[in-house]
């Protein structure tokens, strides 16, 4: 079924949906410009603005009823693009996720950042992020999307580097931005190609004309968009920034680097479905990238002792699943988006849980220094375990439905991809169990000065809400294809609606593998003693611990040659071009220095040359006269 037509719209809540962007933007502006005066109440304003956006999003969702509406705001670049919004089921799903989870994380941050002198600035950046992310998903053309795309990149940069005084944080922020820019380059060139091909950058216009474009062009555009998506969503080969990004405060990791921003790549691929559907090659590459990343992320997750980095690896892996789903066409879109939403809940849940643990453990992140925390922080532990069960696909919890949907669809599409995805699920079972056992169970391996305690209610309440979502949301969205039908006007749907089977081969295999993984983890990290210092480990462990040598590869292939290139260029500029110019000047100066020796100071020598000149002139006159 084809997507529905887009209808210009101006009234009602939908017409006022720009408020969703404007409110947090206003909040950010007030907090940044207001300075210290707003220190006292700045965080409340931030939460309020985010909640306001959420309310608008809910109202718009209620009014939407499966329609697609465009709202023109103002002319941006005459002739090329305007700033206008597209409110449709796809964008509104994202809006709800962003503002909903975002608001919870805002609330959580009040507690988490309470001791930071710069809390106001933190909330300003969070608000800025929410505004940019909403612009990204709401924009009705690629230019607006790109503005939001870079806006979230900026917010991510600011928040990863929130503690600029930590050199690692400053470096991680820069790295994130630069790696993202590589992806942005792809997106930008993709936009150029779309402009020269279709003469428009609006989703509606392009999807209308896509049938006339050649498949080669569409494949090129698709691959370029995929490059952009890889950058933002930390997919191979642009994954290396995400693990470093954990330098940021934990709520940031939860909101930006787990629930929302990193899923923008999935959004882009789904939103540009009309391009990918015309380019099977590009689609295939999307699925391959997805599968490769889901495995890579899972492997990295298995070896990390830093709880946040472990979760980051898991995020990579889960986004790999979404990417895989997004590459499977209309059948996969709904599951990809569904997994995206449920992942937003349970991963945010777990990140905030990790933050809560760190909050109680003096910001210790090494899981080898945890152990036996269950009894000390019960709420955190229970909510974290609910998130854990959701992500490994424990039957009837959220992840079970959405991830299984993706695996099933992949299996239909291509057996190899399907089985690799199943293997990834098994790995998930292992590393997530490892995390839970190392953190909450086993012996207490705390540092002497650690006094773990439960976090305040302002932090635990969001955890509880998120964990409720982690339990029920998946089933609600997937059973009876609710999400698929809801999204259909925006992204289309397969002719034949999928039916959920609990006893399919893939599903059972997944469950079995997950169980094996969990049991293995129990034997290694639950039952056995966990050494406080990480053992050297096998080659594979080291490989995983080093992020599959991603950084080393980047350094060897890009950074070092880049440094050399820079040095050569600077040398060339100073010695080559400038040397040429200065050399020319020196040559002229030198020869003038020698030439001026002709000026001996003897008047008679000068007189001689004058007379010679006169003689030559006389001769010349004679010659001319004779001619």
């Amino acid at each position: 079924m084809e997507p529905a037509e887009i209808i210009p719209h101006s009234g009602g809540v939908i017409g006022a949906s720009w408020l969703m962007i404007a409110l947090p933007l206003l909040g950010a502006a007030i907090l940044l410009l207001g300075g210290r005066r707003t220190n006292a109440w700045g965080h409340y304003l931030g939460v309020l603005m985010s909640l306001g956006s959420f309310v608008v999003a809910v109202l718009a969702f209620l009014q939407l009823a499966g329609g697609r509406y465009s709202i023109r705001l103002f002319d941006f670049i005459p002739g090329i693009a305007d700033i206008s919004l597209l409110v449709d089921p796809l964008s509104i799903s994202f809006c709800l996720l962003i503002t909903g989870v975002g608001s919870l994380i805002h609330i959580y941050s009040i507690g988490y950042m309470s001791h930071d002198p710069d809390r106001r600035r933190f909330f300003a950046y969070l608000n800025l992020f929410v505004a940019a992310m909403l612009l990204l998903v709401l924009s009705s053309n690629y230019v607006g999307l790109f503005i939001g795309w870079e806006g979230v990149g900026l917010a991510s940069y600011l928040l990863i580097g929130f503690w600029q005084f930590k050199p690692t944080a400053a470096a991680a922020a820069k790295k994130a931005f630069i790696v993202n820019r590589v992806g942005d380059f792809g997106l930008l060139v993709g936009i150029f190609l779309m402009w020269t091909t279709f003469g428009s950058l609006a989703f509606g216009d392009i999807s209308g004309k896509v049938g006339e474009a050649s498949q080669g062009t569409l494949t090129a555009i698709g691959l370029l968009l995929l490059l952009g998506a890889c950058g933002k969503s930390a997919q191979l080969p642009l994954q290396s920034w995400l693990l470093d990004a954990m330098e940021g405060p934990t709520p940031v990791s939860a909101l930006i680097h787990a629930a929302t921003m990193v899923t923008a790549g999935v959004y882009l691929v789904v939103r540009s479905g009309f391009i990918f559907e015309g380019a099977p090659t590009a689609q295939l590459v999307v699925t391959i990238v997805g599968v490769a990343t889901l495995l890579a992320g899972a492997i990295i997750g298995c070896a990390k002792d830093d709880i946040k980095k472990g979760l980051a690896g898991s995020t990579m892996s889960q986004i790999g699943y979404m990417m895989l789903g997004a590459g499977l066409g209309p059948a996969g879109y709904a599951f990809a988006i569904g997994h995206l939403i449920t992942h937003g809940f349970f991963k945010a849940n777990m990140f905030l849980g990790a933050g809560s643990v760190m909050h109680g453990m003096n910001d210790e992140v090494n899981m080898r220094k945890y152990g036996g925390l269950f009894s000390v922080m019960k709420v955190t532990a229970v909510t974290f375990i609910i998130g854990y069960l959701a992500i490994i696909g424990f039957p009837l919890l959220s992840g079970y439905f959405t991830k299984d949907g993706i695996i099933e669809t992949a299996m239909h599409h291509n057996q190899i991809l399907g089985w690799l995805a199943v293997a990834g699920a098994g790995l998930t079972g292992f590393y997530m169990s490892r995390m839970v056992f190392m953190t909450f169970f086993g012996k207490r391996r705390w540092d002497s000065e650690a006094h773990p305690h439960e976090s305040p209610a302002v932090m635990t309440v969001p955890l509880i809400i998120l964990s409720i979502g982690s339990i029920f949301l998946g089933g609600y969205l997937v059973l009876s294809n609710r999400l698929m039908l809801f999204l259909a006007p925006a992204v289309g749907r397969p002719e034949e609606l999928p039916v959920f089977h609990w006893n399919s081969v893939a599903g059972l295999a997944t469950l079995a593998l997950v169980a094996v993984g969990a049991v293995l983890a129990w034997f290694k990290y639950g039952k056995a003693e966990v050494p406080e210092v990480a053992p050297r480990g096998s080659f594979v462990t080291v490989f995983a611990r080093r992020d599959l040598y991603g950084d080393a590869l980047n350094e060897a292939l890009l950074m070092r040659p880049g440094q050399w290139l820079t040095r050569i260029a600077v040398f060339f500029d100073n010695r080559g071009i400038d040397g040429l110019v200065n050399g020319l000047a020196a040559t002229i100066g030198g020869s003038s220095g020698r030439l001026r020796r002709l000026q001996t100071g003897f008047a008679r020598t000068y007189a001689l040359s004058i007379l010679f000149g006169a003689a030559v002139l006389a001769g010349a006159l004679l010659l001319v006269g004779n001619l």
Partner: protein
Amino acid sequence: MGETITFWVLAVVSVGAALGMIFSRKAVYSALLLGGVMLCLAVLYAVQEAPFLAAVQIIVYTGAIMMLFLFVLMLVGVDSADSLVETLRGQRVWAGLAGIGFAVLVILAIGNALFVPEPAGLAAATEQAGGNVQALARLVFTRYVFAFEVTSALLITAALGAMVLAHRERLEPKATQKDMARARFAEGDPSPLPAPGTYARNNAIDMPALLPDGSVSELSVNRHIARYDVERGHLPDDPKLAEALKHAVEEEPVTERSHRHEQASSQETDSQAEVTK
């Protein structure tokens, strides 16, 4: 016919004088030979219907300018003969080449030019005004009046310039008679120089004086006369006197009096220098 003879005679004389001028060692000879050339040219002007210019040539050039030259020669020193050894490498050869080349080329050019066989003559031009001087005057005060006025400015400027250039700035106040007397007594020899021939055995001006104690005063002999005597061997028989004369010649450059004065002033400057230190 008369003109031709005049021309050839004067031409030969003037070229000869000019060559003599540039090759004579002594500047005074050069000046006199130049004067000769100018006189020849004056005559040639007269021959060529330019009586006014001939007069001006004699009055201004030979009369005024040449006199200035001679004055300056006297100031600078007549006796300093110019060494004719060339110091700049190749200057003479190249100068000769260039000079001859130039002359040949210009003469060739003149020979090449097409001139009317017979000069037009100035009769027509002067007749109307009633004479050469009147005709020139008419031109000077009509067509060339501006240039003429500018010339006057030039002359005034030149006169002023010469004054400024020749003027020597006085660095210290002019010595009064009192100062001079004081300086003389400060030197410790207030008496005038002894006159030649005092206590002499004969009254010749070239005999050194004898001081009351019987010693010979070298100061009493004019060094030019002494030199004359030494060069010609007219030395007195008394070896003591002869020795004094020779001595006077050897100490030629400065007279005793100026020598003394210089010493005094140098001491003065030394003490000044010490003060400033």
